């Protein structure tokens, strides 16, 4: 990643919530860089903090969450922007103009009492854009997500199907020509075919509009089809990051390996599916040492007492494990991940 330009730099990011039983830290000292025009996938189980990490790119962690650390945005031309220090009005301009976000509630992302057209128009208006030119762009965008612009613009959200709403929202997210699009589980409520078509669509849009995509999901097979790099989150922090190939063939954190091993495969009966033993840690009472040690076969006293920093595995890959070079032997991956050509063929064959 040394020779590519960085668009987002996150350092020491912490997101905390005050709760009755103490402070809940849902993102812990996270560091991550996003390169311009790449697709970065962030994967993790439910409650691992991935949505919170994504929200902090727009300083949009919901109240009463507190975000601390540094989130720096590097525009193509101009000075770096420290996102967490923006005033309210600056933040309003930054959002959607520099970074847009499509999040998992796409089904209800539109105001139910106004037409889709109004959503485009008010977005352009509140960002002081030229409305006729902006609406032309909106029509182009709707066409490029395979929707009939006039019909969609004249519709209310309840008149559209889930997939149409999701695509209309993606078009809406691009109307101000942002540099970065953050997608928080954009395919969660869609069927498999629609998921695939959204992924294809995102690839096309990325090429057409020079986008940087940050794609958050818990669906590993989907991510492998889209992402250039993948960051794996476990217990509120990033435990491994690398190119998609690095993680698929040389995963060096025991959690990543276990995650790959548990990827569902249609050829395996449900009761024979692998699971990761144990349960995920609590965001309030955090354990000392490596957060994964209670579930890790490699764990020793070192892991229980000291938290591992990110170790460089290779040029493009880092892993937060003291024993990253032993992980492959300790956690073997029994079934090939379903992205591999053989499994894909087998799955498809089963369908026929």
């Amino acid at each position, binding site marked *: 990643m040394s020779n590519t330009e960085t668009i987002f730099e996150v350092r020491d990011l912490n997101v905390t919530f005050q709760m009755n039983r103490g402070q809940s830290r849902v993102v812990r000292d996270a560091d991550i860089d996003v390169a311009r025009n790449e697709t970065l996938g962030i994967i993790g189980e439910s409650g691992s903090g991935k949505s919170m990490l994504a929200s902090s790119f727009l300083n949009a962690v919901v109240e009463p969450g507190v975000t601390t650390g540094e989130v720096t945005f590097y525009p193509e031309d101009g000075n770096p922007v420290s996102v967490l220090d923006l005033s309210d009005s600056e933040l309003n301009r930054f959002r959607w103009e520099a970074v847009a*976000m499509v999040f998992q509630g796409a089904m209800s992302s539109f105001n139910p009492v106004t037409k889709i057209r109004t959503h485009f128009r008010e977005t352009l208006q*509140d960002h002081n854009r030229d409305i006729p030119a902006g609406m032309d762009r909106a029509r182009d965008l709707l066409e490029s997500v395979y929707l009939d612009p006039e019909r969609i613009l004249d519709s209310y959200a309840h008149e559209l199907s889930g997939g149409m709403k999701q695509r209309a929202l993606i078009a809406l997210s691009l109307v101000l020509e942002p540099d970065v699009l953050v997608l928080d589980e954009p395919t969660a409520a869609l069927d498999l075919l629609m998921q695939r078509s959204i992924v294809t669509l995102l690839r096309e849009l990325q090429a057409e509009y020079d986008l940087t995509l940050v794609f958050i999901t818990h669906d590993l097979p989907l991510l492998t089809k889209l992402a250039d790099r993948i960051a794996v989150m476990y217990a509120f922090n990033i435990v491994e990051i690398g190119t998609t190939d690095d993680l698929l063939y040389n995963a060096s954190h025991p959690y990543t390996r276990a995650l790959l091993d548990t990827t569902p495969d249609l050829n395996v009966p449900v009761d024979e599916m692998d699971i990761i033993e144990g349960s995920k840690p609590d965001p309030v009472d955090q354990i000392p040492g490596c957060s994964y040690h209670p579930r890790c076969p490699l764990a020793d006293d070192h892991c229980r007492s000291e938290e591992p920093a990110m170790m460089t595995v290779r040029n493009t890959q880092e892993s937060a494990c003291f024993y990253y070079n032993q992980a492959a032997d300790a956690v073997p991956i029994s079934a090939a991940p379903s992205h591999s050509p053989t499994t894909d063929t087998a799955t498809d064959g089963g369908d026929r």
Partner: protein
Amino acid sequence: MSGNYFVKRVGQAVLTFFATVTLTFVLYQMMPGGPAEALRNVILQQQMGSGNTIDPARIEQLVAQYTNLESDAPIYVQYYQYMSSVFLEQDLGESLYENTAVTTLLADRIPWSMLISVYAMVIGYTGSIVLGAVMAFKEKSRFDSVSSVVVIGLNSTPYYVAGILFIFFFSIRNEFFPTGGRVGLGVEAGFNVAFMQSIAHHAALPILSMSVLGLGAALTMRGNSVRVLGEDYLRVAELRGLRNSRIATQYVGRNAVLPMYTQFMIGIAGVLSSSVIVEQIFSYPGVGMLVYEAIQVRNYPVLMGSLIVFTLVTVVAILIADLTYGFIDPRISAGGDNE
């Protein structure tokens, strides 16, 4: 499709109105000492007082004139006579005591009642919406909890209690407002400032007592707003960097007020009937007071007439609510389909 719905809905309204009038007619007739009987007694009493005799045929004639009914005809004939005069001639009969047509009496009184009730509703609902919205934005603050308690308290207080307290504090202890009536004595009626002032001065307390207790809708507004504040589309609107004023009005305001629209229209229907007690307390000669007095002396034509008017207002208000809801909430526009 929408034209079809319109016809269907208007048809339903007419049917409802017709059925209510029929039911009322039957109930009044079946009451011991129904309208005709009551009138006959009134005439006989007057006659005994004057010492003259009057032949029964003359009494029947008088009864027919006042009530639009031939009292000894079978009930279905009476029903036919009454309905045809109500619907075809817009004739509601004559008051038993004043020699005035019921329609005239009502036409005189209704504007006064409308004045206080419409103002009370508008003030009450505006106050509720603003208060409810502020409570929702400051959810869980001290302001929110104190206002909730106060509003629940007000909402559970019958408005006549507030009326009596207002009269006590603002009319008797401090003579800010008159205790009753609708205009001051000796004020020249007409389109002049003194007359308008006098009207406002007299209407202030009834309006205030009705609107303060109408603040109960603030809790509905608060609940609606809190729900909308948690909606995904609100978060997306914030992420889209929309102006706060737009989010407050177009997103939160509009979606929170919507469900209250029907409530408001049904409230209009209740306005005239609730005026019965308020007007009694403030001795405000509106239609409510007319009804109250009519009940006391069994002035059946007036009772029937005002009931028909109340029904009409109710049915029309709900009809308007139904027909216009599609315009303000697009999700309802397909209304007639799933009936």
